[in-house]
């Protein structure tokens, strides 16, 4: 007599019987789609295709967000119309604390306080606080999610996962890790959530830690591309090396297993306009809801810290450490503070410092990389608390601190050796 529930073998046995009677596999002829699908996962042909796809992704991103919207329209709108208009109508004027917080803090030039001529330098809630999310970041996020939705719906992502599988195995991850990584390039939050299908706690821990440290979000990438387009190649290279290198080390240190995950590779499909548009809408509006309040708040906090002199105090206190360890000037404290709230804002603050011409190219490079890796933004931080248990969370934080100190120092060292620092 049978016992319920059935054993695994019995169940398969039953399925075998059922399918024999009901399913018929006809002669199977390969279609063109199958042949293409095969070619895109074989390394020899798949890697060139992946390069082409990523090339397309990146150039679309740059031209849509940078050339067309930010440089084409937004910079003009904010710097030539919005900022001058506010400077003329806002009560108070240069030197007034409230005016400085809201519109323009100005900066000292030859001992005289002068007004800013762009929305990054001005550093007011109404100027930089609006320019960063609406002038730069929104378009970057939109471009990213449009391309991403296309890749998702066509079914290319899992194929990329198959291609990078061997490399990622070396760092204790699986090809599937490409999905959270890619998502995190849009925003780290969905990236962290997408680690749930990973099977062991070790894999999730590795993935979440690496994501929050080495993967910059779309908002951040957008504003980096706007400020230092010529450095982007080096920045990404540095981050990829860090991601793989520290993944390798963490995999050796962290106890636990990282077993194989079986992932199905779906067939290629024609993407549907409606689905793409609705995804684009949901993701972009979610971004705005999370980002805008934080950016405004960040502007206010950094502004207040400047006004009260707290920022100068921090810059002097931490200056020598920052200079000796990372090779960046004490002023970098302000973007680092802003970075606790939002990374895009932090890069924006850095942009303001760059305008003042107090940093060398290599210092800019180091600071941008440091901003990427030193702390996940507040929203990601909160999510990590939720997704990991407290032991893992402390582990993440500890490895984060270690990675920043080691890697930041290493970058400085390499710079010194190459003679560029």
């Amino acid at each position, binding site marked *: 007599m049978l016992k319920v529930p059935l054993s695994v073998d019995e*169940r398969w046995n039953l399925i075998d019987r059922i399918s024999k*009677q009901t399913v018929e596999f006809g002669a199977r002829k390969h279609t063109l789609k199958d042949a293409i699908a095969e070619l895109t996962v074989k390394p020899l042909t798949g890697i060139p295709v992946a390069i082409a796809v990523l090339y397309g992704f990146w150039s679309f991103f740059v031209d849509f967000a940078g050339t067309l919207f930010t440089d084409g329209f937004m910079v003009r709108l904010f710097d030539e119309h919005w900022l001058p208009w506010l400077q003329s109508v806002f009560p108070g004027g240069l030197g007034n604390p409230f005016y400085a917080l809201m519109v323009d803090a100005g900066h000292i030039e030859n001992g005289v306080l002068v007004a800013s001529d762009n929305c990054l330098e001005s550093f007011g809630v109404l100027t930089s606080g609006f320019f960063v999310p609406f002038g730069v970041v929104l378009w970057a996020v939109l471009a990213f999610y449009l391309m991403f939705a296309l890749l998702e719906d066509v079914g290319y992502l899992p194929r990329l996962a198959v291609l990078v599988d061997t490399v990622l195995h070396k760092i204790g991850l699986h090809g599937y890790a490409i999905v959270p990584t890619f998502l995190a390039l849009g925003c780290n939050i969905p990236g962290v959530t997408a680690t749930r299908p990973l099977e062991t706690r070790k894999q999730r821990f590795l993935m979440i830690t690496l994501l929050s440290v080495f993967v910059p979000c779309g908002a951040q990438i957008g504003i980096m591309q706007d400020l230092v387009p010529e450095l982007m190649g080096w920045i990404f290279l540095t981050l990829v090396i860090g991601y793989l290198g520290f993944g390798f080390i963490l995999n050796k240190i962290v106890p636990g297993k990282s077993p194989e995950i079986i992932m199905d590779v779906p067939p290629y*499909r024609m993407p549907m306009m409606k689905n793409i548009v609705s995804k684009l809408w949901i993701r972009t509006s979610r971004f705005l809801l999370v980002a805008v309040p934080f950016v405004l708040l960040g502007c206010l906090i950094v502004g207040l810290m400047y006004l009260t002199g707290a920022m100068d105090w921090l810059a002097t206190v931490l200056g020598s450490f920052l200079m000796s360890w990372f090779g960046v000037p004490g002023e970098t404290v302000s973007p680092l503070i802003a970075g606790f709230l939002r990374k895009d804002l932090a890069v924006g603050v850095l942009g303001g410092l760059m305008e003042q011409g107090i940093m060398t190219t290599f210092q800019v490079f180091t600071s941008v990389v440091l901003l990427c890796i030193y702390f996940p933004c507040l929203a990601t931080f909160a999510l990590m608390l939720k997704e990991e248990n407290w032991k893992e969370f402390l582990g993440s934080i500890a490895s984060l601190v270690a990675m920043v100190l080691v890697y930041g120092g290493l970058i400085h060292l390499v710079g010194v050796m190459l003679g560029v620092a």
Partner: protein
Amino acid sequence: MGHPNVGKSVFFNRLTGAKVFESNYPGTTVDFTKGWMHLGGEDVELIDVPGAFSLEPKDLAEEVAVKMLEENRDSVVICVLDATKVERGLYLALEIIERGYPVVVALNMWDVAEDKNIRIDVEKLERILGVPVVPTIAISGEGFKELVSKIKEATPVKIEKIIENAGGVESAAVSG
């Protein structure tokens, strides 16, 4: 319920008009979403759950799916199968049937199965399982009307009955 990337979220969006992410790769849904659909004049709650290979969860996303199933003991389960991989899908469907849930089986991606020259005898499958079986193409919405109309026909089936219909089952020892 169903395996990852068989189109559960597409079903859910179609049936409730909600907007859950649909993507062409496994593991898009990692949490559950509730929505409402009309069924014969009344509003019925529908839950979209992450994909699962079996009821013994192996990761967090599967845990969510199994937990939702256990928390809703009196619900009808729409079991979405990939028509090109019926055997794998049936494993999960049988597990759910064994636990006493009324089930409707949707054979999704029917178009892909046709492309691959896989033919499934729906009526016979329906007779053996004793539950409604509907071929569907979620992306274009084919088969949805039939699926919805059959939700009410779903009743719990005893696994012994299915075994009898399938012509008996060898014990594991013999088959092993």
